[in-house]
C-alpha cells in the first residue's frame, strides 16, 4: 500500500490528500498539538469555574444539576466521536484514504471513555435528583448499547492481526452500528421516558437559561479540543507503531 503518495485523487480537495502522507501528518500534528493543549486547558478552566461556582443552581434540582456541565458534553462527545469513526470508516472503504483507519483506531477508546463517563455521571446526577441510580428508559438504554458497540469494535481491532484487514472489518462494523445514533438522539422524543427531552439541539433553539448555556457550550468546546489532543497523540502512536512493525518485518526478512 503506497502511503508516501500525496498525490490528489479525483473528486477530493487537495488539502484532504496533503495530510494523507503520514510523515506530513506527524509534522503538522506535532506543531499543532501544544496549541490545542493550551486552548483545551483554558476552555476547561473557564468552563469548570463558571459551571461550578458562578452559574445559578436549578430551581427544582438544586446544586446537583452542576453535573450537567460534564454529563452533557460527554454525551455529545460519545456520539460525535462515533460519527467521526463512521466517516473514517467511509474514508477507509470508499476512498481508501491512508490515514482513515489510523483515525478510526485512535478514536475508539476515546469515544468509549466519554460514553462510560456519560453513563456514570448521569447515574450520579440521577440518584439525588430522581432517586434512582439507573432506569431502563430509551435514552439510557441506547447509550449503554453505544458503549457496548464501542467495546465490540475495540475487541474486533484486537482480534485481527493484519492492520488493513482489521480496519476494513471494523469499518463495516462501525457502519452497521451507526444505526444506533439516530435512535439515541430521537429516543427521548419518540418515547415519553424518564430522561428529560432535548433542551439544546432542538427546533427553535435552546430552551435553557443563558447563564447555564454558556458554561455548557464552553465545556462542549473544551471536550472537543480535548478530543483533538487525544486523537493526535493516539494517531501519532499508531503511525509510529506501524512503521516499527514494517522495520521489524524488514529486519527479520533480511536476517532470514
Amino acid at each position, binding site marked *: 500500500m503506497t502511503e508516501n503518495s500525496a498525490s490528489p485523487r479525483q473528486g477530493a480537495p487537495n488539502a484532504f490528500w496533503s495530510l494523507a502522507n503520514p510523515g506530513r501528518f506527524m509534522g503538522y500534528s506535532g506543531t499543532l498539538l501544544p496549541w490545542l493543549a493550551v486552548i483545551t486547558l483554558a476552555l476547561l478552566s473557564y468552563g469548570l469555574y463558571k459551571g*461550578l*461556582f458562578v452559574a445559578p443552581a436549578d430551581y427544582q434540582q*438544586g*446544586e*446537583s444539576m*452542576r*453535573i450537567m456541565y*460534564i*454529563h452533557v458534553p*460527554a454525551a455529545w462527545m460519545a456520539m460525535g466521536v462515533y460519527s467521526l469513526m463512521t466517516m473514517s470508516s467511509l474514508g477507509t472503504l470508499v476512498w481508501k484514504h491512508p490515514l482513515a483507519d489510523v483515525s478510526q483506531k485512535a478514536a475508539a*477508546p*476515546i469515544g468509549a*471513555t466519554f460514553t*462510560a*463517563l456519560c453513563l*456514570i*455521571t448521569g447515574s*450520579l*446526577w440521577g*440518584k*439525588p435528583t430522581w432517586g434512582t441510580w439507573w432506569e431502563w428508559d430509551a435514552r439510557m438504554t441506547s447509550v449503554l448499547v453505544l458503549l457496548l458497540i464501542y467495546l465490540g469494535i475495540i475487541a474486533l481491532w484486537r482480534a485481527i492481526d493484519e492492520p488493513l484487514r482489521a480496519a476494513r472489518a471494523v469499518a463495516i462494523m462501525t457502519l452497521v452500528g451507526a444505526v444506533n445514533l439516530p435512535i439515541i438522539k430521537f429516543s427521548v422524543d419518540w418515547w415519553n421516558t424518564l430522561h428529560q427531552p432535548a433542551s439544546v439541539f432542538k427546533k427553535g433553539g435552546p430552551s435553557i437559561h443563558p447563564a447555564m448555556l454558556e458554561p455548557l457550550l464552553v465545556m462542549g468546546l473544551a471536550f472537543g479540543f*480535548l478530543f483533538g489532543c*487525544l486523537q493526535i*497523540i*493516539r494517531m*501519532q*502512536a*499508531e503511525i*509510529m*507503531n506501524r*512503521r*516499527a512493525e514494517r*522495520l*521489524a518485518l*524488514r*529486519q527479520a526478512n533480511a536476517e532470514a
Partner: protein
Amino acid sequence: MFDFGPQSGYIYAAYAIFALGLLVLLGASLAGRAAARRRLDRLEAESRR
C-alpha cells in the same frame, strides 16, 4: 472545600470520576506514544547498523 449543599457528595464524585477517567486516558495515550517512539528509535538504530 466548597460546600454545594446536601448533594455535594454526588457532585464531587461525578467530577472526580470524570477527572480520573480523562487523566487515565491521557496517561495511557501518552505512555503508548512514548513506547512506540522508543520502539521505533531502537529499530531505526538497528537498521542503520
